[in-house]
C-alpha cells in the first residue's frame, strides 16, 4: 500500500502545479479579450508578488492572519462542528484589543507586559464568543451554522458601536479609534521585508496546534469525537466537553489572529465591516486538508494570489475584481479531488496489476497446499 501512497503524493503535487497553470491559462485567454497587454498582466500576476522584498514581506504579513483563522477552522473541523464564528471573532477581537490597549496605554505599561496582556485579551474574546454557538449547539441543539452566522452579523454591529461610543478619535475625519499606543504595537522586522513580529506568534501557534493535534491526549479525543461521535460516546469520552473545548481553542486562535492583525499592521481600529478573514481561513483549512501543519503553506498560497491581484491592479488596466474570479478558479482547481483523478487511478491500477502478474492456477494450488500443511500441523499439536 506504500506504493499507492507514493503515487498519491506525487500526483497531488503535479496536480496542484497543473491546476495553477490551467487557471493562469484561463486568465490569459480572458485577458486577451479585455486587455491590451495580457502577457504583461499575467507576468505581473505570477512574478509581481515576488518582485521585491517589500512584496514578499506583504505576502508573509497577509499569510499571518490566514494562518490563525485557518488553524481556528482546523479545530472546528476536527470536532465536525461547522462553527463559522471565526469570521466575527477576528473583527471583534481586534476591536476589544484596541480598546484595551488604549486604556492600558494610559497606565504606561511596558511592552513586555502590555503585548502578552493584549494577546490574552484577544484569546479571551475569541474564547467567550465561540462559547455562545458551541454551548447553544451542545446544550440546546440550536443549529450551529445559523447561530454563528447570526452572531457574526451581531459582532460587526457591536464592534462599530464600541468604536463609535467607546474609543472614537474625534480629531480625524474618518471613523477610527484613538491610536493604539506605541507600547502595544508589534515591531516590524527583517528590514526591508517589513514583516510584523506577529509572525513569531503565528509560528508558535502552528507548532502548539500541531502538538495538540498529534501528541496530546486532547488531540486524540478530538480525533475520535470528530471521526465518529457515537463511538466516542460509547467509549466514554466526554463528548460535549471535547467538542466545546475544541471550539473554544479555535475561537481563541481566531481572537489572537485578530489581535496580531491589529497590533501588527494597524495604527488604530477602523474596521466597519466584516474582514472576511474567517472565510479565508475556512478556505485555507480546507485546502490544507484540515491538517494544521499544512495551514501556513496554504495561507502563503492564498496570500500570494491576493498580492498578485494587488500588483496587477496597481500596474495595469485590469480592475481588481477580475482577479477574484481567477482566484476562485485557482482555488477550485487546486481543491478538486477528481481533477486528474483518472490519471491517478490508472497509475494505481497499473501498479497493483503489476503485482498480480503471477499465474492464478499456481497461486490457488499453493493456497490449498498451504491449508493441508496447516491442518496437519494443527492435528499434530492437538495430539
Amino acid at each position, binding site marked *: 500500500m506504500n506504493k499507492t501512497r507514493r503515487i498519491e503524493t506525487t500526483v497531488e503535487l503535479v496536480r496542484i502545479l497543473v491546476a495553477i497553470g490551467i487557471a493562469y491559462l484561463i486568465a490569459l485567454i480572458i485577458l486577451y479579450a479585455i486587455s491590451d497587454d495580457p502577457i504583461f498582466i499575467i507576468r505581473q500576476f505570477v512574478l509581481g508578488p515576488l518582485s521585491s522584498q517589500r512584496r514578499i514581506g506583504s505576502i508573509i504579513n497577509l499569510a499571518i492572519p490566514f494562518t490563525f483563522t485557518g488553524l481556528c477552522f482546523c479545530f472546528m473541523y476536527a470536532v465536525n462542528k461547522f462553527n463559522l464564528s471565526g469570521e466575527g471573532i477576528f473583527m471583534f477581537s481586534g476591536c476589544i484589543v484596541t480598546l484595551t490597549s488604549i486604556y492600558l496605554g494610559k497606565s504606561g505599561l511596558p511592552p513586555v507586559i502590555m503585548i502578552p496582556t493584549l494577546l490574552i485579551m484577544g484569546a479571551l474574546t475569541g474564547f467567550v464568543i465561540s462559547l455562545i454557538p458551541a454551548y*447553544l449547539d451542545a446544550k*440546546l441543539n*440550536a443549529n450551529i451554522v445559523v447561530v454563528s452566522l447570526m452572531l457574526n452579523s451581531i459582532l460587526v*454591529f*457591536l464592534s462599530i458601536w464600541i468604536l463609535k461610543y467607546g474609543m472614537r478619535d474625534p480629531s480625524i475625519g474618518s471613523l477610527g479609534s484613538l491610536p493604539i499606543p506605541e507600547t502595544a504595537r508589534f515591531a516590524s522586522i527583517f528590514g526591508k521585508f517589513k514583516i510584523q513580529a506577529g509572525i513569531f506568534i503565528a509560528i508558535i501557534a502552528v507548532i502548539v496546534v500541531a502538538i495538540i493535534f498529534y501528541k496530546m491526549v486532547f488531540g486524540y479525543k478530538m480525533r475520535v469525537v470528530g471521526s465518529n461521535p457515537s463511538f466516542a460516546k460509547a467509549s466514554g469520552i466526554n463528548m460535549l466537553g471535547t467538542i466545546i473545548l475544541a471550539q473554544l481553542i479555535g475561537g481563541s486562535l481566531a481572537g489572537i489572529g485578530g489581535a496580531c492583525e491589529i497590533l501588527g499592521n494597524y495604527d488604530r481600529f477602523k474596521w466597519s465591516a466584516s474582514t472576511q478573514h474567517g472565510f479565508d481561513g475556512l478556505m485555507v483549512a480546507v*485546502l490544507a486538508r484540515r491538517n494544521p501543519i499544512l495551514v501556513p503553506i496554504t495561507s502563503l498560497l492564498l496570500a500570494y494570489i491576493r498580492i498578485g491581484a494587488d500588483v496587477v491592479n496597481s500596474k495595469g488596466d485590469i480592475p481588481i*475584481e477580475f482577479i477574484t474570479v481567477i482566484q476562485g478558479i485557482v482555488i*477550485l482547481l487546486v*481543491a478538486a479531488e477528481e481533477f486528474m483523478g483518472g490519471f491517478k487511478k490508472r497509475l494505481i491500477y497499473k501498479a497493483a496489476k503489476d503485482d498480480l502478474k503471477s499465474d492464478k492456477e499456481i497461486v490457488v494450488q499453493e493456497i490449498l497446499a498451504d491449508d493441508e500443511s496447516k491442518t496437519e500441523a494443527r492435528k499434530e499439536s492437538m495430539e
Partner: protein
Amino acid sequence: MPMYTLDWFANFGFSVLRLSTPLIFAALAAVISRKAGMLNMALEGMMLASALAGVIISGLTGSIWIGLIGAVIVGVLAGAIIGFSNLTGKTDLYLTCIAFNLAATGGTVFVMYLLTGEKSTTSAAIKAFTVPSITIPLIDKIPLIGKMVSGHNLLTYLAFLSVYIVWFFLYKTRLGLRLRAVGENPKAAGSVGINVTRIGYISFLISGILCGLGGAFMSMGWVSFFMKNMTNGRGYIGLSAMNIAAGNPVGSALAAIFFGFSDAFATMIKGRGGNFPTEFIEMIPYIATIAALVVMNMIRMNQKRKIEKGLKQ
C-alpha cells in the same frame, strides 16, 4: 397613539411580505439543496449573479420577461458551475460555495465594468425594467388584509407560490421523491438505479432557479437597478431560515417571514429617527433569530424529557 391604525398595520404587513420575498426564495433554494443532502452556502453569490444578469439582459433586450428569464438562466448556470465543481470535480462543497461567493462578488462588478464602465451600480447605465406589481381584484377590497396582500410585486406572489410548488415538487412528484431519497441515503438511492450525480445536479439547478428569482426581485422588483454586493447577506439568512425549520419548505418560509418581520420592525424603529444607536437596531433580526431558535429548541427538549420521564402520554 393615533399612528397605529388599521391602515398602519396593513402597511406594516405589506412591508413584511416585501422584505421576506428574497429571503423566501433563498430559503427555498436552501431547502432543495438540503433535501438532496447538501448545505448550499453559495446562495448569496447565486442571487447576486442573477440580480446583475436580470438587469443587463432586460436592458439589452428591452423586455422585462426576457430579463427575468435571463436572471433565472444565470442562476441555473451558477448552480451548474457549483454542481460541476462539487459533483464532478469532487471539490469540498463548503470551499466551492465560499470560492463561488467571492468570485461572484468580484465577478459581477467586473462584468458590470466591462459592459458599462461603471463599478458600483447600473442605475444610470442600463435602462431599468421592473417586474410589475399586481392588484388582486376583490381581495384588495377587504380591510386590513386587502391592503396587506394586494398590490405586491409579481415576484412576491411567486415567492409564496413557490413555497407550495417546492412542497408539491418534493412530496408529490417522482423527481422530488428521488431527490429526497438521494439526500437521505445516496447509496440506497444509487442501488435502485437512481443516478445520484444527476439528482445532485438537478438540485443545484433548481436552487439556481429559485436564487434567480430572488436575485431578480432584488434588482428588478424591489429596486430597479443592480448595485454591487446588493444581496448583503440575504443568502445566508435564507440558509439560516432553512436550517431553523430543518429543511421543511413551509417551515423555512415561515422562518424567512419571521426574519422579514424582525427586519420590518427594525426598519420601523430606525425610521422614527432620534439617537438610539442604530447598531442595536440593526442587530434585532439576528438576535431575534437566535432567540427564536433557542426558545424553540428549549420547548422541544423539554417535551422530550417529559415524555421520557413518563409524565406525558
